[in-house]
């Protein structure tokens, strides 16, 4: 294990959050908003792609795919339009970071969109925002309207002779629409049922045209990379996990919230120092590190982990979308799993049988165990269903349910067994 990066809050994405009316164009501009447009348009589009590639910026939506590399997959000879879709669906339980960007610094996102559009030769960007974000969609639209009025968007965006149009498209309540192919279907006015990949969206995406899909936080990181260069961005984080991350933390901690830190800081220190430690003076039992689909860690694992892609992978989990869910030592892990599986079976889009049937089945078996009606062989049954749904479906939602299921049993098997032996839940309700 390498030494952890020093824990301190940093201000790359969150630089303006403390300012009054930070969401307005006026305040944004007073504090460097849109100041990187000139520099970006002075570069060749391909050079911006290179710079982002070299910066090591990885997607903040969950999979951590290198952003610049994704952009370079666009076809070289292409007579169709190229689209940018910005993923603001933010529906993975435990994740609530993109909302900060939209509420506190939407202009940083818009500046990122303008630069990205120029880099990938797109003229139309769609921001897909979850339907429940009514107030946030309005805030985003206000910021976009301000940008149009100031000539930053439109036919001659920022006076550069390059058209950039940005449209907010609201979803209507479906977690699966955060999956990139379902997201495109939803913009096209259809049910949010993921399409089979390949072809990947960089070749066949929105309206069958080449499309780049990136998370809000990924795109909002672009202006900083232009300003400070790839090397400047790499000053933060580790070799393979460059930059900063807006980590969310929720559950049993004293100070839940969103904190921006460099990647590579100690998870334990993050919990203890920034989030104020486990609440009510209790002990830590478990942490789901990066949104509910990531395998759960026990206290021993947490002490070893740093908040970066490699460390979490080495410890059997994932960084995901950076939303930690903390449970104290009085928590029933069977009940936690039951809660999560209810979510996943509810959100299955229904087009693949293993997902539609398997997730509901997993939920019922775990609910029975929690109710004291479980049998010992149910544990192997759960593991076998998990293996049989994962990787056998159109999208990875089934895997997103299988991973917590498997890891909860693996790390906390004795709690499941105790429920079964006692015929009831041993924890207070």
């Amino acid at each position: 294990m390498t030494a952890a990066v020093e824990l301190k809050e940093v201000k790359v994405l969150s630089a303006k959050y403390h300012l009054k009316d930070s969401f307005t164009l006026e305040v944004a501009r007073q504090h460097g908003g849109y100041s990187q447009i000139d520099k970006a348009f002075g570069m060749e589009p391909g050079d911006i792609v290179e710079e982002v590639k070299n910066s090591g910026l990885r997607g903040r939506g969950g999979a951590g795919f290198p952003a610049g590399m994704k952009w370079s997959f666009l076809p070289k000879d292409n007579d169709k339009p190229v689209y940018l879709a910005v993923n603001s669906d933010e529906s993975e339980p435990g994740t609530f970071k993109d909302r900060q960007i939209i509420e506190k610094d939407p202009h940083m996102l818009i500046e990122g969109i303008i630069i990205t559009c120029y880099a990938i030769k797109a003229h139309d960007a769609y921001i897909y925002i979850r339907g429940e974000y009514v107030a946030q969609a309005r805030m985003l639209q206000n910021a976009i309207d301000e940008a149009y009025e100031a000539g930053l968007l439109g036919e001659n965006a920022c006076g550069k002779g390059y058209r950039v149009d940005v449209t907010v498209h609201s979803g209507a309540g479906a977690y699966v629409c955060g999956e990139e192919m379902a997201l495109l279907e939803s913009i096209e006015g259809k049910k949010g049922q993921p399409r089979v990949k390949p072809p990947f969206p960089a070749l066949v995406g929105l309206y069958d045209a080449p499309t780049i899909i990136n998370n809000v936080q990924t795109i909002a990181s672009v202006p900083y990379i232009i300003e400070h260069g790839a090397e400047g961005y790499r000053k933060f984080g580790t070799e393979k996990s460059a930059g900063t991350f807006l980590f969310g933390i929720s559950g049993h901690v004293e100070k839940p919230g969103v904190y921006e830190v460099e990647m590579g800081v100690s998870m334990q220190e993050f919990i203890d120092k920034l989030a104020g430690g486990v609440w009510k003076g209790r002990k830590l039992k478990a942490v789901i590190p990066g949104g509910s689909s990531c395998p759960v860690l026990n206290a021993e694992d947490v002490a070893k982990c740093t908040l970066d892609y490699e460390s979490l992978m080495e410890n059997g989990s994932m960084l995901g979308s950076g939303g930690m869910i903390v449970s104290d030592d009085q928590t029933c892990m069977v009940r936690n799993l039951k809660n999560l599986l209810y979510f996943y079976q509810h959100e299955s889009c229904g087009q693949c049988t293993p997902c539609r049937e398997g997730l509901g089945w997993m939920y019922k078996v775990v609910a029975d165990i929690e109710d004291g009606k479980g049998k010992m062989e149910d544990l192997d049954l759960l593991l076998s269903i998990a293996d049989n749904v994962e990787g056998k479906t159109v999208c990875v939602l089934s895997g997103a349910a299988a991973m917590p299921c498997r890891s909860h049993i693996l790390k906390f098997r004795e709690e499941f067994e105790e429920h079964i032996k006692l015929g009831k839940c041993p924890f207070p309700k």
Partner: protein
Amino acid sequence: MSAEERKAIRADKPFAFSEETERKFQQLLTRYPKDQKKSLNLPCLWLAQRQEGWVSAEAMEYIAERLEIPVTDVYEVATFYTMYHLHPIGKYHIQLCRTLSCELRGKEEILKHISKKLGIKPGQTTADGRFTLSQVECLAACGGGPMMQLNDDYHENLTPERVDQILDQLP
């Protein structure tokens, strides 16, 4: 959707966009490629719901006509997504988050409190038509759990007292 199900969601009065909705619709038309009108499917369902409070079969037929798409394409979308109301609901819609972070911070107590206070269970509307209660999945306010969405607005860090304050002062 079967013919019977469609009948069950009829408002039994004609639907058309109001002047204001029409203005928004015309604006939306400029945001998508001209040959991709179907992209306005979700936005139009939102417009209809904003206007009437719910989406009737008549509204869906109207949208299909305006977008020049089969009406089944509209039904399909209106029933796939959870946020479109196919029946009128209460004036105030309380959507309490059910998911893990909120559960860990006591959403069950809040649910019991609201249920008792209003005399309804999730999925029900009060007899006076003021409140509808729903349990919903994670609303991305996990750091402020337990939380609810009341019509458009989020309310976080709920306690029974906070809930009383919020609900008692509604007009």
